[in-house]
């Protein structure tokens, strides 16, 4: 369970560009929830993710995972329990290393990276299985360098890599935004499948209102560092994309976007 309590974040305090992004921001994510977060640019979606992951520090407030305060934990330490897929397909994989090497790396997450052999041939079958589930034909290309794959393929591998080892949370940071519509759909379906299969708790930030509506168990819309919409369960299933779009436009016009 993830809790953000009374998070306050001010950008550039004391300067002309001072901007208070979050003021007493609260969020609770229960185990097993799949949250979609939408909002306009600057609403704080990505900042919220970065605060959770530790890339940005909050000015005050607490971040708790399973009731443990992780405020002081360095960013890389938090990733022990968190998996993250980035918007840029290049950020989730190593282009000059093979698929096998990348998966071996991801497989070792949480364990020491010592002097034992990096690639475990015995796990190759397991990796093939995982790649097969993507349906992209990558299971035969274990020794291909990731750099030669397309953006969508790389993102798919990044997704597998992020979820290969046990996680508390999966953070999806606009991970389909850089893909063409068809590939984006494929990746989104895969994401949903992986989350369901591995029973993950997930937070997905997206600009795609349709995905936000169709996938996930809870929908949040953010604006200026606050939630303006929080739909779960039946309320969510009854909402359509048009409804969300309407609310979105209303907010946007109000801010003069």
């Amino acid at each position, binding site marked *: 369970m993830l809790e953000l309590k009374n998070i306050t974040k001010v950008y550039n305090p004391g300067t002309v560009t001072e901007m208070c992004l979050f003021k007493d921001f609260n969020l609770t994510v229960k185990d097993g929830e799949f949250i979609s977060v939408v909002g306009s640019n600057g609403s704080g979606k990505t900042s919220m993710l970065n605060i959770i992951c530790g890339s940005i520090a909050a000015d005050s407030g607490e971040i708790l995972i399973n009731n443990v305060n992780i405020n002081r934990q*360095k*960013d*890389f*330490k*938090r*990733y*022990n329990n968190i*998996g*993250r897929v*980035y918007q840029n397909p*290049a*950020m*989730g*994989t*190593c*282009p*000059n*290393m093979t698929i096998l*090497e990348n998966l*071996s*790396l*991801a497989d*070792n*997450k*949480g364990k*020491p*990276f*010592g*002097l*034992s*052999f*990096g*690639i475990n041939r015995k796990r190759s079958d397991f990796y093939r299985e995982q790649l097969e589930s993507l349906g992209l034909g990558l299971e035969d290309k274990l020794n291909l360098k990731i*750099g030669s794959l397309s953006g969508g393929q790389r993102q798919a591998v990044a997704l597998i890599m*992020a979820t290969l080892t046990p996680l508390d949370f999966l953070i999806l940071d606009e991970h389909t935004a850089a893909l063409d519509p068809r590939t984006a759909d494929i990746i989104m379906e895969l994401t949903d499948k992986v989350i369901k299969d591995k029973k993950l708790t997930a937070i997905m930030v997206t600009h795609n209102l349709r995905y936000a509506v169709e996938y996930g168990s809870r929908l949040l819309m953010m604006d200026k560092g606050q939630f303006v919409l929080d739909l779960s369960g039946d309320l969510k299933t009854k909402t359509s994309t048009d409804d969300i779009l309407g609310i979105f436009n209303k907010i946007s016009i109000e801010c003069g976007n």
Partner: protein
Amino acid sequence: MELEMLELFVSTVTEGLIYALLSYGVFITYTILDFPDLTVDGSFPLGAAVTAVLLVAGVNPYLTLAIALATGAMAGLVTGLIHVKLRVRDLLAGIITMTALFSINLQIAGSNLSVEREIDTIFTAPPTLAVFGSLSLIYRKLIVSLLIALICKLLLDIYFRTKSGLLLRAVGDNSTLVTSLAKDKGLVKILGLVISNALVALSGCVVCHAQRSFSSTMGTGQVVFGLATVIIGTTIFKKIGAVKGTTAVVVGSILYKMCIQIAISLGLPANLLKLITAVLFLVILVFGNYRKGSVRDNA
């Protein structure tokens, strides 16, 4: 006359093998870590300075190899800490360490230190003579240097296949991924710098054994040498995927030394030496890049 040429060839290849250790080091930082490390200009003579002092003091010549590795490792550690903990840019961190090492080397061995012929080096000490005594000094230097270069290469090749080695490769390829794997990318970079500079100092150590001297100016330009050999080696072997980077840079180092020796042997006006060397490099690189009807690589 053939003997003459063979001897020259042998001593040139030996130079190439000794300096290949430096190339390994630059390969690790420049190619794998994507970190242009100028510490090399300081850690190379550091290895030689320490070695010269130890040899003159009567320390076991073989032990100097290990000690040189350790001092180089420390130099790399310093650069790493400056870069990671003090958040100084990669290039500058290396420059800072290199500059400091210049003074430190002077303190260790003065501006110049020679090792008398009476003192044994790894090429003349009893254990080496016991195995290779039948060979002349030039061939002994070749064999011993070859052994050292090979052992280092094998160890590196094995290392890059370990988990730690994969992580090292990852940090240069995509450091964000390293963070996502819950590892401190700063520490991984530091490890790379440590290993790299240890090898560079080892190169300086063996050079000191071969030349029986340390000179405080011997480090100048070594990072340029290292980069040149790495680029020459990797360019030539670009098409052949099966050749490991470590092999490529050994070839690069030997080729570089050969080019210089050719320039010397051509008997052209002495000042044109560096120009001729540059032309030879160009020829090799163009030759290595030439592909009939090729498509440019994707960046």
